[in-house]
């Protein structure tokens, strides 16, 4: 896989990618596939140790803004064949997404979301509460107002996706350095000229910021101010059970989500409006909290009554790299050549990374304009073009 580094980093590279999560690994593969040699990926801990390895692995098209839907639709298609390309199972299982609400005031949002999704070619449909029982017989529908179901959405296993990309990267000659931290970035005039790492310096004209929760800190090193905040989210797995749940269930009224993993464990979390939003990496605290276990348990039993007799096995926390409109930040910045963002995925990086990386690699190497990248560039905030997606959960 990725051997622990034995020596210093190479002295030069055609590109340095910061972050060994799904974004960093995917873009290194996509750049290498398109002919870029001498790519170095830097990961300060282990592959997937950041947000990628902590997430619930959800992959869905049911969003409310066109960019998110279109990107997500490409992602689902991408995940459909990713395992074959990487030669490692991703465990992408399209059990569907069942999005429910107890709040009658949200029904209009659901209906118009379905309409927009359908216009974009996504096969979602609006459901009455009792129709949900056909999909999840044990679901408590007594207080539901309505639901939305998309059969093509699903889940995958983050670590195997990470390893798949890492192996593909290695095969393409990418050098992945784990336990290697980026210390500083050097610029010459208005160009990236190199980086300094904990294992030596690398001169390079191209730096890609895939650092997720640390993207803001990295951007500051090159004088770029990102509006990202880091939001703490907690998640748990239960004991293992034989298959009993096909779709991912997600509530937009109380923020709970849960699905059954390939190992038979219930995997889920719940949003907490009280969770902190950090700016400073030094504040990050992903230690498990009893509050989450208690809140999640109450909400889970309410939605899925058999859970009363099921057991929580392990809980952990991770960070969403959140932008003001919950959409990623892609592309470069004016006045600094060679620096690109691939961050700010606000809790849905795992599902969008393969496609975002593909588009970004093409854009970086050919200079071709990309509508989606243009609309998701950093300067959209200065232009006031903020459209917040309504279906942010977790």
């Amino acid at each position, binding site marked *: 896989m990725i051997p622990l580094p034995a020596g210093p980093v190479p002295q030069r590279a055609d590109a340095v990618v910061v972050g060994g999560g799904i974004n960093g690994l995917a873009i290194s593969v996509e750049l290498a596939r398109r002919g870029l040699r001498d790519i170095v990926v830097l990961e300060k801990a282990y592959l997937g140790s950041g947000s990628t390895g902590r997430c619930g692995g959800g992959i869905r098209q049911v969003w409310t803004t066109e960019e998110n839907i279109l990107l997500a639709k490409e992602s689902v298609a991408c995940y459909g064949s990713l395992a074959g390309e990487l*030669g490692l199972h991703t465990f992408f299982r399209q059990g569907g997404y069942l999005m429910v609400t107890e709040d009658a005031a949200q029904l209009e949002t659901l209906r118009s979301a379905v309409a927009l999704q359908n216009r974009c070619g996504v096969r979602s449909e609006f459901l009455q509460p009792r129709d949900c029982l056909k999909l999840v017989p044990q679901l408590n529908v007594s207080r539901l107002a309505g639901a939305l179901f998309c059969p093509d959405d699903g889940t995958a296993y983050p670590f195997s996706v990470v390893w798949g990309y890492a192996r593909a990267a290695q095969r393409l000659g990418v050098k992945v350095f784990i336990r290697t931290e980026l210390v500083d970035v050097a610029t010459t005039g208005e160009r990236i000229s190199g980086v300094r790492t904990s294992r030596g310096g690398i001169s390079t004209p191209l730096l890609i910021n895939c650092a997720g929760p640390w993207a803001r800190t990295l951007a500051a090193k090159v004088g770029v101010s990102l509006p990202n905040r880091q939001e703490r989210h907690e998640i748990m797995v239960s004991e*293992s*059970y*034989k298959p009993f749940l096909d779709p991912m269930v997600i509530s937009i009224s109380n923020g709970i989500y849960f699905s059954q993993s390939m190992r038979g464990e219930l995997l889920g979390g719940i949003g907490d409006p009280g969770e902190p939003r950090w700016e400073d990496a030094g504040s990050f605290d992903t*230690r498990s909290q*009893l509050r989450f276990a208690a809140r999640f348990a109450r909400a889970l039993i309410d939605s899925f009554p*058999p859970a009363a007799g*099921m057991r929580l096995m392990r809980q952990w926390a991770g960070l969403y790299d959140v932008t003001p409109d919950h959409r990623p930040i892609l592309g470069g910045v004016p006045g600094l050549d060679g620096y690109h963002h691939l961050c700010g995925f606000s809790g849905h990086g795992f599902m969008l990374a393969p496609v975002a990386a593909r588009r970004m690699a093409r854009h970086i190497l050919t200079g071709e304009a990309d509508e989606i990248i243009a609309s998701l560039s950093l300067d959209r905030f200065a232009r006031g073009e903020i459209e917040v997606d309504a279906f942010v959960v977790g």
Partner: protein
Amino acid sequence: MTSLSDETVTIFFEGKPLPCRAGLSVGAALWEHGIKVLSHSHKFGRPRGLVCARGQCMSCLMRIDGEPNVRSCQTPVRQGQVVNRQDAGSCFAPAMHKALDAGGHLLPVGFHFKWFTRPAFLRRAFLDGLRPVTGVGKLPDRAVWSAARGGPPAHDHGVLETVVIGAGAAGMRAALAAPGRTLLLDDLPACGGQRRAALDRVAGEGDGLLAALPRLAQMRDRLESDARRISLADRIEVLSGVRVVGAYQPDMLLLKDESGLAVARAAAIVWAGGAWDRLGDFENNDLPGLMGPRALYRLAAIQGLRLAGARTVVCGHGFDLWLSAALLHAVGARVALVPDTVTGAEGEIPAASRRLGWALHAGLELRRATARTGALATLDFAGGGGLTRLPADLAVMCARAKPAHDIPYQLGADLVLDPDRGGFVPRAARTSGTVVSIVGEAAGAAPEDLCVEAVS
């Protein structure tokens, strides 16, 4: 587990009624009926059964009264109880499991990541075929989950001065030494730990067994004396039947007893949670019938598992080698002793064995365990120029135990892997900057080190 009465209850194991002595756990009751295979491992279908006897290793999980993944070693038998193995009628027929187990590399590591990734139709077929055989228990019956709902709110003990977790040798000493009000927690009904229960059982046997083994008598005196001092100390409150099931930094403990969960916070926490049995690395080291001394003490001394006439083998070294052999002797089992050595502290073993009628095979190395009808039947040893095969219904592995590291880790202790002390132990003698201090076997001490003269 409460002490046994003469009362009998009838449980239904896979439809068959079985009379069981009330007070035994389901796992122990089934053992007494010769049913030692309680589950099968989910990849190779290997037989599993009682191992740790304290609800920590999960090898004894069964479906009991419609509830999945129940630890049968911790669940008392009840009249009319319905007990089933969870893999009965699973997708993989037993024959297929046997083939997979026998086929060695038929299922190499990571096969489920690597096989049939292309073409797409094969990939889909593979994953679709894999899903039904994943998972362990089935969803709980409606009766179970609807009864589980509601209930009184969990108790909050509030913020305490000192909490000592574990009332064994080191925990009792820590409680006695702590200033101010102290809460002493243990999952057993009485202070002194598993060893005290075992020593009491040995003492309860006539014919001066304890007197013949002075180091055991010495430990018992010390544990009794400390337990007495604790009962007399007003500032120490003992909570029995309580397990610490989680720690949330910096100072919050999640406790569990028969009535449910509770929380407590403490300015100072002493972790005296002891160590976990280590079974060792040899072939078929997962067979039902292999266990460590702590499990033996719980089964034989605390639960009262009948082992009269059983052929038992005790391997290893140290205090637990002695105590395990003595306990098995006290309950009427036949004892074969396989100490690592008979020099040094173990020098008295040959004389004791002769006196007490224990077969003795010194300096052998365990190579393989073999089964009959799924459970342990023999142990194969190398050494002395040949192969020694010993019959065994139960074998006790008294190897270097592993300090229990999970709770102190969660409380922020800085731990380092030290094989000489058995596992992950505190890096410094006093962990500074955290609320927890670690003592006793949890810090890597050997039981011998805990046996000092009783303080008057």
